[in-house]
Structures are given as structure tokens and as C-alpha cells.
């Protein structure tokens, strides 16, 4: 084996990346080579230093107390003392204490779990807010356009609003009082440049016929001249085929 190969094997061994066969090969070599042994020792030290970069975490206090209780219990027993009370009294006291400790431990664990869940939820909310801010950023752009949509003859009560930034192809869309689409059909939003439609995504309405769509899939457009909603086969289509229900320009 070359010097370079040996150094590689040592580096791999230090981070635990060697497979069994190469490992035994290296160990055989180490038995007779002090230099390689020292080299591996120094690299192992490097590897175990890596976790020092991690931010320390605080373990729940219950782990410490359970560990220490167990350690104290496992020590070699000091010489037996002469019993003065009833033989069963220490056992009853022990059982009571153990029971109480058990209940406390369960309660502490439950509280910790709740705290963790709450922290997790808070983190999720924070992420969602950041995501929304990111998504809504382009909408605040000077190039974005707000368009009101009106219902066509068949559904005059329906209407909608769209704010779309043609440069980033992102935006938001709201629809109000749309009847549910026929079975097997979906509503699809289109942004039009001149008379060329661009797919802005499909959406579903809630029980009141309202809908909200975060527009993310539009290509970059020169400008948005109009926005329309059509009824299309479920899953949506690349170009509009069905009846138009909302339009705004």
C-alpha cells in the first residue's frame, strides 16, 4: 500500500467511513507502524472535535435525576446495618417513593412533551409567516397589477380579485360566490398577455364559494392585460377549453 493510500485509510477510519475488510487491513498495518498509529490518533481527535461546533442543548432535568438515582442504586452496597424497625418498613417506604417518583417523572415528561409541541407549532407558524412574506414579496413590487374580475352572464353574483406581478410571475387571486364546478371539472385561472393565455393554476372553492390561490407557476410575462377563470377538466389543462366564468382587464 502506498503512503497516500494509508493516509486515506486513516482519514476514512477516523470518521468511521471504512468498510470491514479495509478496516481489518488497516488495523493489521497499524500493529507494526507507529507513524500511522500516531497519524490516525491525531485524526480521531479531529473527528471527535467536530461536534464541539454544535450549539449545546439543554436536556430535561428528569434525565439527570433518573441517571443519578440509578447510579447511586447500583453502587456496591455499604456494609449491612442492623435492622431496628420492622423488616418490611423500608420496602414500603421504597415502594411509595418509587411510585411517587414514577408519577412525577411521567408528569414532567408530559409537560416537556407539551412544551416541545408548543415550540414546534410556534416554529411552524414562524416558517409559514416567512414563507408568506417571501411569496407575497413580488406582489408588493411596483410592476404588479391589481385586476377586478366580474362574473359572466350565467353567474352575475360571482366576482374576484387578482394581484399579479408579470416580472416574477407570482401573485394572489381571490374568488367570491362561485358555485361549485360540475363533477369532474375544476376552476382554472389564466393570465392573458394580449389574447395569449398563461396557466396560473387551478383552485377549489370553499362551502361559501370563495377561493384563494397563490399564483406561483406563471412564466415571466411582459405585461398582464387580463385575468380570466374557466371551467376545465379536473387537474387543469395547458390551454383554456371550457366556459369562461370570471373575467377582468
Amino acid at each position, binding site marked *: 500500500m502506498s503512503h497516500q493510500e494509508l493516509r*486515506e485509510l486513516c482519514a476514512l477510519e477516523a470518521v468511521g467511513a*471504512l468498510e470491514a475488510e479495509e478496516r481489518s487491513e488497516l488495523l493489521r498495518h497499524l500493529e507494526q507502524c507507529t507513524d500511522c498509529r500516531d497519524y490516525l490518533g491525531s485524526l480521531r481527535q479531529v473527528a*471527535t*472535535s467536530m461536534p464541539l461546533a454544535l450549539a449545546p442543548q439543554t*436536556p430535561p432535568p428528569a434525565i439527570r435525576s433518573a*441517571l443519578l438515582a440509578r447510579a447511586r442504586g447500583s453502587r456496591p452496597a455499604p456494609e449491612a446495618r442492623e435492622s431496628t424497625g420492622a423488616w418490611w418498613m423500608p420496602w414500603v417506604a421504597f415502594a411509595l417513593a418509587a411510585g411517587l417518583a414514577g408519577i412525577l417523572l411521567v408528569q414532567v415528561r408530559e409537560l416537556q412533551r407539551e412544551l416541545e409541541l408548543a415550540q414546534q407549532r410556534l416554529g411552524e407558524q414562524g416558517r409559514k409567516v416567512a414563507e408568506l412574506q417571501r411569496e407575497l414579496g413580488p406582489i408588493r413590487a411596483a410592476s404588479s397589477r391589481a385586476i377586478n374580475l366580474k362574473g359572466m352572464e350565467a353567474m352575475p353574483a360571482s366576482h374576484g380579485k387578482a394581484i399579479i406581478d408579470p416580472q416574477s410571475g407570482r401573485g394572489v387571486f381571490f374568488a367570491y360566490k362561485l358555485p361549485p364546478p360540475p363533477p369532474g371539472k375544476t376552476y382554472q385561472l389564466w393570465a392573458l398577455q394580449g389574447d395569449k393565455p398563461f396557466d396560473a393554476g387551478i383552485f377549489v372553492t370553499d362551502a361559501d364559494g370563495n377561493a384563494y390561490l397563490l399564483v406561483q407557476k406563471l412564466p415571466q410575462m411582459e405585461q398582464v392585460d387580463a385575468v380570466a377563470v374557466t371551467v376545465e377538466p379536473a387537474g387543469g389543462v395547458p390551454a383554456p377549453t371550457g366556459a369562461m366564468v370570471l373575467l377582468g382587464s
Partner: protein
Amino acid sequence: MERLRERDPEALAEIYDSYAGLVLALALRILRERAAAEEVVSQSFWQVWEQAPRYSEQRGSPAAWIISIARSRALDLLRSEDRERRRRERASEQIERQTEPVQGPADWTLEGERRRFVMAALASLPGEQRECVELAYYQGLSHREIAARTGAPLGTVKTRILLAMEKLREALAPLTSGSAP
């Protein structure tokens, strides 16, 4: 360590207080699951207690010894099939979290200084070298598995790990030299 070897529970308490935070951080980095990581803390310090009479400074500093125990425990748990499946389910989330820089409140203690020092050493590595070393150390992957995971040729993975370790050895010399390996 002498008192720990003699099975003094107060010595265990002291060593726990010094290293439990680091052990939990390491277990969390490996397992990405709080409950499992806490289990590793319990198991690791129990193993420290049980094996203390056989501990020898020649095999490494107490910190290195405890870190090695915790890493093996966490990787054992990670490798158990159940964990593996659950880990895969959360894979996308993990990747997102793995790319987050480690940040905490400003900590100007000696440990804080040491942490920044090691972080800087790791940050100075080219991304692909650091990735290989971390996949091995924190995910327990062999060089073949790393090659499969990253799509890099086997020889490249070996070279990356060697270069990374040599660079780290040089960068961390002020920290590691002087104490037993």
C-alpha cells in the same frame, strides 16, 4: 475521572453537567428527533458510568471518549430499521434544517469561543469536502455509501475526506495539540 473510576455518583453528576448539553446536541444532529436523542443522553452517560473503571486517558480525553460513546449510541439507533424508515419520511425536512446555520445566543464563555473556533474551521472547508466528512461522521455512512449518495466517484470521496481531515487537523491544532489523542 479518578473519582468516576471509583464509582462516585457526584463525579458522574459533574461529568454529566459538563457534557450532557454537547451529547444531546450531537444525538440531535444525528437522529433529528428529540425523544430519541434524549434516550441517547441517558444511555450514553449510563455507559460512561458502567465503563468508567476501564477508561484510560491513553485512549483519548474524557470529552473525546464521551463523544465517541454518544456517537455510537446515536448511530446504532439511527441504523435500526424503524428509525431509518422514519428518517426517510422526514428527509426533505431534514435537508432544509441541515442547511440552516447553527445559531445560538451570543456566548462569550470559553465553550462559546471553542465552538466558534471549530465552526470556523468547518466553515473553511469546501462544501463537498465538508459534506463527505459530515455524512460519514453524523450519518454513519461508509465511503461507498457516500459515493452513492453524492454521485461522486469513490476515489474522489476518499480524497475529499483526506483533504478535509488534514485541513481540519491543521486548523484545529491549537485546540487539539497538547492533550492526549
